[in-house]
């Protein structure tokens, strides 16, 4: 554990050094990410000019929801996007070789290599949004909320890593890593907007609709245990499947050329 933490810390330090090395890149992308965030907030404002609630969520609740979504999204994007991208590239160009030679869990090594900081402004905006719209909460609620955020991030990460692992089987699948970013639409809206079969699917069997909803409900004093069970079960099963799939795929990996 200590070894893995020190390696993670090392990677984080290196990522920071990179950030200082390429300042312009950081400022540009921070600007882009902030721009998008403001744009999506404007979208909410316009929406609530037309209606007083969305699927039972009023404006204040929706802003807490939006804050949670931003926090989860900014964090997963910062920690995992570059890594997933590099992961699939390394399969294609053969640099995965070096990682597999080292005495360290390959999935861990692949998942923590780069941390991007360009989404930090978005993370801050998300937290501000929460602070401005939050009803009174206890410390234990905040802690539980943080734990739920980690669970949601875990689900997104695992889903991402799982889909990226298909690259082993075809060697060139550029768009495979775009699947998860596209799926974000599912959890960018409260789960209550889904009904019938789709609703059951997205809240029980593949509970992606709960990724943002469940932590938000906790802050809004509407927490549902069933949702947590669904999310947690899904995460554990998917994580196990991903590990098995990853290890099986490594056997298939043949490097390139000779």
């Amino acid at each position, binding site marked *: 554990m200590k070894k893995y933490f020190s390696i993670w810390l090392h*990677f984080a330090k290196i990522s920071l050094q990179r950030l200082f090395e390429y300042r312009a890149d950081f400022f540009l992308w921070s600007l882009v990410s902030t721009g998008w965030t403001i744009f999506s907030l404007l979208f909410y404002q316009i929406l609530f000019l037309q209606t007083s609630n969305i699927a039972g969520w009023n404006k204040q609740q929706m802003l807490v929801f939006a804050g949670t979504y931003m926090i989860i999204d900014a964090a997963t994007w910062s920690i995992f996007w570059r890594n997933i991208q590099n992961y699939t590239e390394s399969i294609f160009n053969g640099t995965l070789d070096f990682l597999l030679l080292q005495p*360290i869990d390959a999935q861990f090594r692949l998942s923590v290599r780069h941390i991007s900081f360009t989404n930090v402004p978005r993370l801050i905006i998300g937290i501000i949004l929460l602070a401005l719209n939050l009803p009174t909460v206890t410390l234990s609620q905040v802690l539980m909320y943080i734990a739920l955020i980690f669970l949601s991030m875990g689900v997104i990460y695992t889903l991402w890593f799982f889909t990226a692992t298909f690259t082993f089987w075809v060697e060139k699948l550029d768009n495979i890593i775009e699947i998860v970013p596209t799926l974000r639409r599912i959890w960018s809206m409260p789960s209550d907007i889904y009904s019938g079969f789709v609703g059951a699917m997205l809240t029980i069997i593949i509970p992606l609709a709960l990724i943002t909803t469940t932590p938000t409900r906790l802050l809004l004093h509407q927490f549902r245990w069933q949702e947590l069970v669904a999310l947690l079960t899904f995460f554990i099963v998917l994580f196990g499947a991903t590990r098995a799939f990853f290890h099986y795929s490594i056997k298939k990996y043949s490097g390139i050329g000779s």
Partner: protein
Amino acid sequence: MESIISVQHLKKYYKVYKKQPGLMGSLKALFARKYESVQAVNDISFEIEPGELVGFIGPNGAGKTTTLKVLSGLLYPTAGEISVLGFTPWDRKPEFQKQFSLVMGQKNQLWWDLPAMETFLLNKAIYEIPDTQYKHTLNKLVTLLDVKDVINIQVRKLSLGQRMKCELIAALLHNPKVLFLDEPTIGLDVVMQKVMRDFVREYNTTFGATILLTSHYMDDVKELCKRVIIIDHGKKLFDGKLQDIIDKYAKNKILSVVFSKETDQKKLETIGKVKSFEFPSATILVPRKEASRLAAKLLEDFSIADLNIEEPPIEAIIRDVFQNGK
């Protein structure tokens, strides 16, 4: 002595798909692909003892890198029994991985946009190298390779030679007992090639490491390895002392002659095959076994200022081996 690397009947086949040329070929391949099995390594066996420095040579596509990758646990063999340091490589046990290193001249593990020092520190954490051992080994390697001023400069700003030295350090920090070097001198200039060679020899003797080296440059092999394994088309053609290749495969010797008096080529051809003749020098190929007799005859029949009996260059012999092996 017990061998540190043991390879028994190693086979590695790849499945590759063949595409017909052009757009129509691509369209066809979209629906039905023709797969073909390529025998990268086909039934190779050898043993290597601790501390040996063995040259692994063969033309492009002979199966050298494939063999090294199987030995490092990167590839699962199609068949065969392999043991390295007592481990089955593809189990990829950390205890095994901490004891060997693979250096590929054509690929780099160093962080491109950071100083090499960062990669060293990362490897220290990954290989769990104790502080004192890390400092000691790093100092030693940095001095040996003379890169003190280089390790804190961004890798992308280094020359190929400097980068390769840093690659070596990154690969050797954990004091591997077994080292696989795949084309370590590729693309380097002659001076740097020599530095690398000296280093490999030094590492072999000081650390007692077992080294398996592949190279296209015969000079690397000639200078470093007593023993060579030659493979081609996935098969082993030769395994033994470098000198034995000459004895086994060189059919001719070369007589280099300097004449003191004018002579004509026709007369020379009674001795052997005249490879070049430009008065006063000539080189003549003669059957190996008759070299002494024919040299004596040459001295008797001609006016000679100087005469040498030489072995053909090892490159030429090996080229012959490859060409006849097909």
